[in-house]
């Protein structure tokens, strides 16, 4: 089951992941990653801007790629957009599989692509106002792992 949601309001990861696990009877394991807004470096708020014509479609294509590449029963991507504060969940990815390695690798893969190749633009609010966030070199090395790694 592919379940991709872009949400504009706070979400509770545990409720989503329990529901996702229940939707896959016979599974061996579920791996989940939840990312939250870090409050470090004086960040007061974060804004993620989507482009509705592309953002959700891109995530659905990513989910399809992960479902093809790993032996998954299902993949859940929930991504928050809009303005959010420190401690609030931004993203929740869950992969259900018969075997744990597939579930863990699929989450690792999906997060690397979500964090670096999603059609999302980010800015942070600090005491002196809003600042756009530029792409990080780390993102590119994260993606490079999946081009060469044998799975």
């Amino acid at each position, binding site marked *: 089951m592919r379940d991709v949601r872009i949400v504009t309001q706070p979400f509770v990861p545990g409720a989503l992941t329990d529901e996702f696990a229940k939707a896959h009877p016979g599974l061996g394991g579920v791996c989940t990653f939840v990312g939250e807004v870090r409050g470090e470096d004086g960040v007061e708020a974060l804004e993620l801007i989507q482009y509705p014509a592309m953002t959700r479609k891109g995530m659905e294509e990513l989910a399809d790629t992960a479902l093809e590449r790993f032996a998954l029963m299902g993949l859940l991507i929930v991504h928050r957009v809009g303005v959010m504060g420190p401690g609030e969940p931004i993203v929740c990815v869950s992969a259900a599989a018969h075997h744990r390695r597939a579930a863990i690798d699929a989450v690792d893969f999906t997060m690397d692509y979500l964090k670096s190749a999603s059609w999302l633009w980010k*800015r942070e609010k600090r005491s002196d106002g809003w600042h756009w966030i530029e792409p990080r070199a780390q993102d590119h090395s994260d993606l490079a792992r999946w081009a060469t790694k044998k799975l």
Partner: protein
Amino acid sequence: MAVKLVFLGKLADLAGSDDRAIAAPLDWAGLLSALEPALAQAAQDDTTKIALNGALLTDKAALEAHDGDEIALLPPVSGG
């Protein structure tokens, strides 16, 4: 008879709004001449992608937009 231009990320700051309407039809030269110099320069930057109705253009110069189309100017993504 208009094309909708959408500005993402910091390009929205540069444009002063998230979107605007300009006259259709529109090709690449027409788009550049319709934009303020700073926006036109940003549009030509290799790191800026152009999408027509949600589909990325592999060759910006091939842009052909008609009434009702949506052109997006996409600066580098900063990740989720």
